[in-house]
């Protein structure tokens, strides 16, 4: 197991073509909501007339193939993690992960639960965390605008981190996923 490799910002910023594409990427962000935890209720006001995130070009998308942002709301249970990793790996590059609420940051109020994971950043690279329990729509919009600025500056490089440190992330994921194997006897049923 090697050291954790970080991506230097300079190599992204110096690539002129990448900067031109980032101009378009930051203005058109399609989002996949992974709302198995709590907090999904904060998103309809963010989308609709009151706060209207479509004016920044951010819109909902139905599948991981089409989405740029994976928004993970609330706590992540050990079984959910498997689906999150699969959804994340189905998304084409470049992709960004936004952790929503306190739980993906450090476990929140579920920090001592046997069924949840505490640090989402150990399993998939989180570009931006929205803290709060729950973050209100203003905070969500503020966070998304911060993500837009990060993409503009070339700082949102989570997907490159994931490629460079694939083994490190996979090792962490395996440690959790081993715990989620079925323990009950299925009685011969598959």
């Amino acid at each position, binding site marked *: 197991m090697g050291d954790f490799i970080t991506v230097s910002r300079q190599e992204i910023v110096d690539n002129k073509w990448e900067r031109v594409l980032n101009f378009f990427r930051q203005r058109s962000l399609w989002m996949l909501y992974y709302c198995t935890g709590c907090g999904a209720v904060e998103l309809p006001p963010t989308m*609709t*007339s009151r706060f209207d995130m479509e*004016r920044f070009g951010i819109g*909902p*998308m139905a599948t991981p*193939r*089409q989405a740029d942002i994976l928004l993970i709301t609330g706590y992540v249970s050990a079984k959910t993690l498997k689906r999150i990793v699969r959804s994340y790996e189905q*998304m084409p590059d470049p992709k960004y992960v936004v952790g929503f609420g306190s739980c993906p940051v450090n476990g929140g109020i579920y920090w001592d639960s046997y069924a949840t994971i505490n640090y989402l950043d150990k399993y998939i690279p989180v570009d931006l965390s929205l803290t709060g329990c729950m973050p209100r729509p203003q905070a969500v919009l503020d966070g998304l605008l911060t993500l837009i600025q990060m993409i503009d500056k070339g700082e949102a490089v989570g997907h490159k981190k994931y490629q460079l440190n694939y083994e490190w992330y996979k090792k962490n994921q395996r440690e959790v996923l081993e715990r989620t194997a079925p323990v009950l006897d299925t009685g011969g049923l598959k």
Partner: protein
Amino acid sequence: MYALNFVLWALAAMAIGLLFMGISRKLTARLQRRYGPPFWQSFIDVIKAFSRKSISHNFIMDLCALMGLAGLLAAAMYVPMGGILPFPSDSPLILILYFMPIGYLGMAVSVSASGNPLASIGIGRALTLMLGYEIPFAIVVMSFISNYGTTNILSIMQAQAGGIENWHIIKMPFGFLASLLALEAMTGKKPFDVMIAPAEIASGPMVELSGKFLGLAFLQYSVAVFVETGLLTALFLGGGATVWEFVLKQFIVYMVLTLFSEIYARYRVEQAVRFLWIYAGGLAVIQLALNMYMK
């Protein structure tokens, strides 16, 4: 020489379609009392989609995604923008009606090749709906044939020259309503958006399209918008003396479709086909009977 015309015409068709899509998103937003995205948002979306990595499942998926765009571009070559055409032709309506399904079928094969069941459901719905709107539209085309004995759009446009009282929207109102309903289904607007239905089948045909495939799907939709609104403009709204007049009329048609889209909820697919056959088909048959009687 014609190759240059082809490229320019294709780019113009895509640009007009994307512009209409962007403005219709803005209009939708204003109707919902939102600020809405900028009107060039569709261009940004397409460029971004092409800038992303894309996942191809097999060769058929690549080939037929291009075939879908090519079929609709071929149809767009015969839509006269204000009497101008990229090739010297009479812009035969039958040829356009043959080329357009090539586009849709190309997309159908492409997304079915991806193997996603939701895509197959979406394609099944889209082709069923196609059965619904092609028949009323074909009957409307037959009423044109019974009037003029030709399906050349240029002749039909010439017959409407000389003022608004000669337009077919005045002379053939039932046929116009029938084709407006068929067009609402062709563009996949809301009472008939059963094949997209993001909340039910995760955007249906587009479910497995990533990056460049999604960009191609957007471009295909934009050309389809150009062709379909162009047909209605040329057949019923007198075409246009200039390109600008023609595009303005296309724009008005598309905005009317958007407004309809905003006030209706979604039909199920069998309801949509029944509605189209009974109401659009009924209006089209009335028009055909009137035309044959008055002749």
